[in-house]
């Protein structure tokens, strides 16, 4: 089975597995989730003993991967772009320690914010950490680059960042696999001080990293992923980054582009190639999915050189993902227009599922908060964030994972009493626990609702690290036992639950209400599976 039909995400997973991966470390997040899920479902990975359990957050994931690299094996850490913020401390310092076994970090960006809080461009992180960055343009390249990236990491002794964006992550195509490489054997780093970032050692490592920069760039010029296509019409040179290349080629249907084209998918940016296209053309057009990362570097702060067109001069919209037509317009080509969208069309925003436990939680919360007025409910990220919309309109904030509790504490400090935090079970263990400790240490007058649907609902029902631990954690952090309340969010228990909510909101210290009822989607799935298994055993018995 050398050819397979896979998502871009799955191509990355398969490429890493074929490169001899021993473990994937990840926290779910659109559009990165399917990388790890693919490995979790893979028979091959199971046979080879590839570690693939979900981590508690992106930082623990990246550190887990670094630990595996320390022990000599090949590891991968996967996350969505904002997850790399959470893992940033580990990420930046892993560039200083360097690696033993190969280590690839995958960050999946979401330009146009299809399901994210922002559209940050992970290539900046790669440059910030001064490590090689790979940005595949299609599924085959996603596979090839995962395969190559882990080996590049081993060759250079440095972590490698692989950046994808939503369209490639969630688009399927056929890829061809390469020969499977073996996993590494357990081995300690040859230099026992390599991973000790005391200043005395860190300085040495850092100058080592600086010393490798030229080699990273040579690799980007020579690896074959960055390609220069000659073109007769030198009035314009076109630089594409990542999958922007596809949109360019889409518009040159069936013929070679007339202009010189530089296709970039590996960084640090290959300056020799860029110099060539800059020198031989009259002006440049830079097409990139994400921020004007390369465009800004080429154009420079003063913009005194040749004309560089892209997102900064308005040739391309400043935000949002590229489309074939945006690129066509940038090339001065005419575009097709479809039918007018009729005015009877209505929006159909995502909603909480019928029967979702969060609905009952928020109905009671809305009633409990009514006497205090609006603006006091600090929420977090998950399915429950949909309570911001009609009809519930129950929450006032959603910023970054874990922010609900810490923001409620800060607002209470400012005098907004009572302040209430609402956080999901997975988000609580991801980043909420530390905020709760702040609250306890300050004796803040806040009430924290942990909406425990026993799964990571938003991203499709992955295993929640919080499962079975919440009461223990909350108690351990120091919340008084009589102010840890457990309710079952059900419509018929509304009045009973409301009474608990009111009591704890009135309490002038830290209280935690755990609203526990399983997500109906995971419940249905579990029941179906149970039923199917029962049927299977029955068949076995009957036979």
């Amino acid at each position, binding site marked *: 089975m050398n050819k397979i039909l896979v*998502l871009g995400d799955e191509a990355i997973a398969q490429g890493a597995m074929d490169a001899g991966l021993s473990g994937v470390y990840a926290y779910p997040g659109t559009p990165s989730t399917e990388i790890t899920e693919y490995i979790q479902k893979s028979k091959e990975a199971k046979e080879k003993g590839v570690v693939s359990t979900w981590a508690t957050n992106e930082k623990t994931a990246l550190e887990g991967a670094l630990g595996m690299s320390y022990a000599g094996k090949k590891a991968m850490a996967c996350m969505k772009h904002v997850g790399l913020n959470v893992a940033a401390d580990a990420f930046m310092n892993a560039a200083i320690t360097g690696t033993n076994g190969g280590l690839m970090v995958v960050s999946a960006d979401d330009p146009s914010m299809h399901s994210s809080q922002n559209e940050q461009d992970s290539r900046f992180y790669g440059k910030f950490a001064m490590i090689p960055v790979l940005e595949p343009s299609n599924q085959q390249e996603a596979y090839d680059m995962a395969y190559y990236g882990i080996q590049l990491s081993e060759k250079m002794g440095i972590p490698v960042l692989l950046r994808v964006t939503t*369209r490639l992550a969630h688009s*399927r*195509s056929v890829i061809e696999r390469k020969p499977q490489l073996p996993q590494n054997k357990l081995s300690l780093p040859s230099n026992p001080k390599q991973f000790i970032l005391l200043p005395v050692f860190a300085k040495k490592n850092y100058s080592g990293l600086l010393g490798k920069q030229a080699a990273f760039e040579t690799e980007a010029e020579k690896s074959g992923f960055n390609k220069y296509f000659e073109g007769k019409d030198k009035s314009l040179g076109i630089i594409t980054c990542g999958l922007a290349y596809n949109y360019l080629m889409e518009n040159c249907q069936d013929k070679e582009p007339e202009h010189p084209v530089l296709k970039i998918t590996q960084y640090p940016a290959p300056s020799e190639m860029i110099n060539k296209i800059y020198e031989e053309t009259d002006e440049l057009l830079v097409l990139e999915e994400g921020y004007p990362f390369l465009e800004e570097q080429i154009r420079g702060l003063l913009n005194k050189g040749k004309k560089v067109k892209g997102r900064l001069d308005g040739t391309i919209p400043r935000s949002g993902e590229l*489309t074939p037509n945006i690129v066509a317009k940038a090339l001065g080509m005419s575009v097709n227009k479809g*039918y007018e969208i009729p005015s009877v069309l*209505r929006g159909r925003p995502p909603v909480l599922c019928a029967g979702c436990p969060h609905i009952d939680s928020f109905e009671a919360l809305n009633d409990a908060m009514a006497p205090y007025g609006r603006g006091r409910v600090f929420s977090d990220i998950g399915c429950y964030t949909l309570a911001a919309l*009609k009809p519930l309109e129950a929450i006032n904030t959603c910023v970054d994972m874990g922010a609900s509790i810490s923001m409620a504490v800060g607002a209470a400090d400012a005098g907004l009493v009572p302040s209430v935090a609402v956080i999901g079970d997975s988000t609580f263990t991801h980043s909420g626990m530390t905020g709760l400790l702040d609250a306890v240490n300050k004796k803040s007058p806040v009430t924290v609702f942990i909406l425990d649907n026993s799964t990571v609902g938003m991203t499709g029902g992955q295993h929640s690290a919080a499962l079975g631990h919440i009461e223990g954690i909350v108690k351990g952090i120091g919340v008084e036992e009589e102010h840890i309340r457990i309710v079952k969010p059900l419509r018929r228990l509304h009045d009973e639950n409301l009474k608990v909510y009111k009591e704890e909101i009135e309490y002038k210290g830290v209280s935690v209400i755990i609203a526990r009822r399983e997500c109906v989607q995971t419940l249905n799935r579990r029941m179906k599976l149970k039923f199917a298994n029962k049927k299977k055993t029955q068949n076995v018995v009957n036979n």
Partner: protein
Amino acid sequence: MKKDIILGGVGGQGILTIAALIATAALKKGLYIKQSEVHGMSQRGGDVQANLRISSKPVMSDLIPEGKADMIIAVEPLESLRYLNMLDKNNGWLITSSNPFNNIPDYPDIEEVYNEIRKIPRHVLIDANEIAKQAGSVKAANIVVLGASAPFIGIEYNYLEDAIKDIFSRKGEDIVEMNLKALKAGYDFARENK
């Protein structure tokens, strides 16, 4: 040969099954494909869409350019209108189920929706639920819509049948038969009513 297909519906209505069936059929015929899907946030009762591109030459963009889709296949009538800006005015086909999925407070009068669909010169509006029921289960409504699209996909019908056998075989012979019946019923309807 090249077909650019937009699939539209509401989360959970089975548009990815339609996409997987067409993709399987296309691969059996030796074509290139790219299939871009929406995952995540928009699956919870919100609108979902997929871009499916099949061609005898390698496909470049994962997204179909605006105004160039050869077909819109929708399993919900209101959703069929959402992507009209993508449909090629010169020869694009709109194939949609007539059965509304009403989970929003301001769902328009369904007759107005049908009127807009009927304004598209090349369209098939099909009562997929009813036809699927007759074939054995309303759950096969998406397969009925696929059947109704079959005359325009540019892949021989038997490849689609083979794809159904492939994909549903692990669910048992009955399910395969039912889906084949649903496919055929949709196919016949479209050929009579196009």
